[in-house]
């Protein structure tokens, strides 16, 4: 085969693959929207999104507790996870010996490879009792199945993503920049803070966004420790019921209660839209950050 033919073949093939992936995302959104029509025909979007009663048998499908539950759990996991991840990534990239780095990286990759159900099980066995003890000490009545348990398990699940991406980004900062800073008499920490982190800021931000997206959609591990009670939670020791857990738990009743399948499809659509909005917002922020640095 001539190399020009090969080239046009490759161009065609890559284009088809790219189009397929983009169309797929649209396809999912369209399918979910179509499937949500029956429920949208019976109640308004406002009532579905802001209603707080979930009683499918009585045809009440308020999604607010689930949306709030999702925000609580993923927000908490970020609050716990991000500082630890950043410090770890900085240590591995800026301070640690090469040997420690070559040891830590495979271990982090291993953490990334553990299936969610194992994290969930570990959460049930270790984190839930711990949270129950904490709650008892704090004087709150809690079974341990709570937002806090969900947040902790989720935080650990996003560690490998955020750490490895952040570390990668930090190491991309040219060594000359560090050398210049150190030559001026700055300490390592000053160099890290004012030179490395500053240059790597957009990348670090992207890593955090990646972690958040993962946290948002994670289902099984959270479902196993979060308590699954459709209420508006008032404290970290309260149980919550995130959207993905709603869909996974009740997938089974889809065929047995009228409108239920449509309500769940709508919940899936809400999840998709929220993730999409979040990604768009993140991209905008990222652009501004890049501009500011350049």
């Amino acid at each position, binding site marked *: 085969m001539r190399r020009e033919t090969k080239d046009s073949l490759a161009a065609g093939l890559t284009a088809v693959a790219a189009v397929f992936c983009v169309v797929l995302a649209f396809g999912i959104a369209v399918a979910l929207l179509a499937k949500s029509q029956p429920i949208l025909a019976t109640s308004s979007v406002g009532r579905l999104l802001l209603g707080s009663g979930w009683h499918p048998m009585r045809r009440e499908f308020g999604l607010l507790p689930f949306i709030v539950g999702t925000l609580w759990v993923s927000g908490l996991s970020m609050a716990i996870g991000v500082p630890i991840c950043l410090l770890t990534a900085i240590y591995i990239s800026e301070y640690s010996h090469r040997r420690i780095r070559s040891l830590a990286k495979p271990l982090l990759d291993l953490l990334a490879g553990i299936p969610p159900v194992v994290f969930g099980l570990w959460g049930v066995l270790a984190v*839930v009792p711990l949270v129950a003890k904490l709650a008892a000490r704090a004087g709150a009545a809690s079974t341990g199945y709570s937002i806090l348990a969900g947040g902790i398990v989720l935080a650990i699940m996003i560690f490998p993503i955020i750490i490895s991406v952040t570390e990668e980004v930090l190491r991309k900062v040219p060594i000359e920049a560090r050398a210049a800073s150190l030559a001026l008499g700055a300490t390592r920490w000053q160099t890290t803070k004012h030179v490395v982190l500053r240059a790597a800021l957009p990348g670090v931000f992207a890593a955090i966004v990646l972690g958040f997206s993962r946290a948002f959609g994670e289902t099984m591990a959270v479902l196993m420790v979060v308590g*699954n009670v459709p209420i508006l939670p008032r404290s970290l020791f309260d149980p919550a019921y995130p959207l993905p857990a709603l869909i996974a738990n009740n997938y089974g*009743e889809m*065929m047995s209660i009228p409108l239920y399948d449509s309500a769940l499809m709508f919940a899936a659509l809400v999840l998709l839209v929220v993730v999409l909005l979040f990604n768009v917002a993140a991209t905008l922020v990222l652009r501004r950050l890049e501009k500011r640095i350049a």
Partner: protein
Amino acid sequence: MRPREAQVGVAFLAVAMTLVLLQSPGGAARRSAGSTKKGRIRVSGAWALYPMMVRWAEEYHKLNPGVRIDVSAGGAGKGATDALSGMVDIGMVSRDIHPEEVKRGGFWVPVVKDAVLPTANAGNPAAKELVKTGLKRDTFVALWIEGKSLTWAEAAGKPKSGDPIRVYTRSDACGAAETWAKYLGKNQEDLQGVAVYGDPGLAEAVQRDRLGVGFNNLNYAYDTTTNKPVPNLMVIPIDINGDGKLSRSESFYQNRQAVKKAIADLVYPSPPARDLNLLTKGKPKGLTRDFLLWILGDGQKYVDEAGYIELPKQKIAEAIKKLR
């Protein structure tokens, strides 16, 4: 981690992720009874039926080495949805079949019986009192439906225990919760309490929480080898006639055989006792039909061993007639 917790944990993990693949070993040497049946049957659904189905699948596979049966558990609702959407051939449904499911072409036969039992942590503050008095249905209603926060003293008459009862339920759409709710006059969605995934998960939660109460299918509340309640779990006796004490006819919770007898003799109320069903989309044909007929025939001899209760002869006969 204490050993029994590790055990439960491992069991939980195993079941949660299990897909029992009964591979056909191939080769004519192992082909018994000259069976030439070949194919694959996919089964999913109720945790309540899972151990039974695994046993049936093994035995059927021994007779028909050319048939592979995949069994997975995920709750009654998943079984119904999977079967009706064509993802599996047979759905295990441990509750009544909903009219909506019939409308979508659901065909079903009852195959065995078991029961949902209320459970509490064995170390609860009123354990001794509970064995003597049991709990009335009204108390269960107050806890699971009305969501009242009762103390152990208020519920079980133990003086001086200010500890609250902590109520657990199931998060997955399942027959056990639906049947328990039906006993209390409602549906699963009306059950209050912290919701945990899966039958083993709920047992685990109550085993770990000294103040916890929950409910489990017979075979998750009692250990299959010792026939005693699983470690750290006690079955709450039901004060059936509501007279505030347990008469001799109401106390049958010492071991699994005694409970099974009470369920078979209809002493234990129904619900929470119930038939376990197998659901197919439309009337089954071919291999699936053959497997179902075998379950209702020869398959019944494994029912008792596996810890379930046989259906009355007449019900079996009706089910066979329905299939033919």
